[in-house]
């Protein structure tokens, strides 16, 4: 209990040793998912074209977006101008917005409820996203200060009986999780599923979102994903973060964009690209069979071959992260 209490206090609970229900008590054998991996060496490439190609490979074309309200949920963690490995790059957000608009989405909105800084405008300014939103005429919604609605916890992995969700999620027909590819010193990795912490309103969960930490990070991740049911993930792995993620790590140029409609499958693929066994990440193991497949055998890989793109990310050298290493 002392260890758990400690982790809670610093705004976290480690993925390992948390007493998650048996990671493999749900069989994913019958589940299949497609994941597309694209190479993109830099943010100056034609990201729109790359995204369009990838989405079409996944069977998603204009018909999937026409007339829909699409909510893009980037990962905006910290207000910083100097560290490109922290926040989802504005070029990726802009490219996704343009793709969905050209496919005649009724509206595209960008929404975030960042966990470390209440002032969204400051985070937008510092991350470089503010001018991109203005140029692209993309509306931004601050999910931390949105009206909220109580929704029953669809999975019940944590002790939270209901989740308070921003009403903007109801406005969206399609929710797109757009994380950065990063290590995370408590959760192991932070990708499309963990990015959903940012839909939880700070006015109800605090800064950092300590209620979720007390309820358990892996458990909360699974509950939020099962309740929000996001429709698509686009992971910015062009420059990721290794080492002391999610905010103090170092840049890792992985040169990939990863996308898919099943978030556990997308995250498991990203973990493999990072040289991390997804079964060692508690919330991914917990997602297996409940929210999707994470085994390679159950994920249909599209786009680039995975093996040549795998670049083992450095993991913080601390005993509490030893479980991530093989």
């Amino acid at each position: 209990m002392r260890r758990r209490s400690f982790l809670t206090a610093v705004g976290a609970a480690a993925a390992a040793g948390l007493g998650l229900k048996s990671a493999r008590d749900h069989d994913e054998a019958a589940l299949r998912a497609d994941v597309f991996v694209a190479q993109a060496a830099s943010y100056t490439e034609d990201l729109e074209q790359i995204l369009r190609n990838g989405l079409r490979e996944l069977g998603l074309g204009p018909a999937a977006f026409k007339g829909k309200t699409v909510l893009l949920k980037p990962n905006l963690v910290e207000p910083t101008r100097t560290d490109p490995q922290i926040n989802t790059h504005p070029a990726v957000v802009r490219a996704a917005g343009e793709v969905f608009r050209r496919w005649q989405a009724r509206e595209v909105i960008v929404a975030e409820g960042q966990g470390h800084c209440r002032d969204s405008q400051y985070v937008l300014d510092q991350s470089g996203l503010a001018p991109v939103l203005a140029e692209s005429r993309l509306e931004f919604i601050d999910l931390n200060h949105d009206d909220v609605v109580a929704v029953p916890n669809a999975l019940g992995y944590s002790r939270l009986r209901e989740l308070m969700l921003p009403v903007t999620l109801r406005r969206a027909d399609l929710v797109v999780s757009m994380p950065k590819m990063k290590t995370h010193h408590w959760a192991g990795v932070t990708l499309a599923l963990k990015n959903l912490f940012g839909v939880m309103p700070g006015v109800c969960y605090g800064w950092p979102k300590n209620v979720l930490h007390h309820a358990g990070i892996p458990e909360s991740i699974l509950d939020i994903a099962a309740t929000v049911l996001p429709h698509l993930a686009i992971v910015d792995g062009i420059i990721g973060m290794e080492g002391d993620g999610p905010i103090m790590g170092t840049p890792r140029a992985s040169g990939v964009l990863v996308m898919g409609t099943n978030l556990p499958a997308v995250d498991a693929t990203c973990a493999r690209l990072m040289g991390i066994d997804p079964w060692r990440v508690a919330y991914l193991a917990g997602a297996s069979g409940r929210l999707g497949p994470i085994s390679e055998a159950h994920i249909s890989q599209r786009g680039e071959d995975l093996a040549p793109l795998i670049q083992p990310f450095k993991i913080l050298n601390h005993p509490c992260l030893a479980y991530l290493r093989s």
Partner: protein
Amino acid sequence: MNDWTGSAQTELLRLRDRTGAWGYRNDRSPSVEPTALACLGLWSCRSHSPPEARRGAIQRGADWLQTLQKSDGSLGIAPALPSPCWATPHAILLWNALEVHAPARRRATAWLLEQKGSPIAIDAAYFGSVVGHNMTLVGWPWIEGTHSWLEPTAMAILALDREGLAYHPRVTEGIRVVLNRALSLGGWNYGNTSVFGRQLRPQPGPTGLALLALAAQASKLRPRSVDPAIAYLLRTLPDVRAPISLAWGVLGLRAWNASPAAAADWLSESYSLHSGRRDVTTGLSLLLLAHGDDPFVAREPRS
């Protein structure tokens, strides 16, 4: 009267809903924090504009807040959200500034004094290298039952200070929390100093708020954390035009009599850049507070 403050007040008044309260956006439900800050922002302009012109709106906001007070003295964050109650200090600050609703203020203050963040007893030998702050100190949490964090602790200190409790033991320990969460290179963030040995980054908003809180006991002490924080803000704010962060930063500088003359231009520029937006309520309110006769700043700014 400075031009921007007049139009900012007019804009702020237009952002009210039919009940006379404010939401974080003008198309969202009214909430305690934006309502209290909007009223404080309008009130802080009293020496620039006739108070009668705004007094009705301010009083209506203060009365609206009182309708949300629960029997235990606390206020939820909105009519539909009776908990969490972290915005209770905001209501106290407004009622105190206006010198209204004294019984409500007393009940809210009594409730606030009872609220405590969860301390964590740890094995320092094992975990001391991982987390930077003293987790046994007790301040105030955002959400009942969770750990103490910087911003709710600072807001509680401010409210209790205004209620004449600057030297209450809870305030003294709250100040210890604030000091303990200071970053060694200057400033504060949401309340984590270092994790796994890495010093985290400061942010102007929490830094300004922490400086305001520390001013509560400034007649007796000038903590070592003050000067590095002032230096951080003076270095950072010239490039900050996000209204909330800028305004809290300027308020923090004012609390220690360290706000430069250029701050007036920063505030004006910030207003120009963000006026007309749907989600500008809190930002406008704080810009006015940072410019005006600020109820957050001690009656005699510390030198």
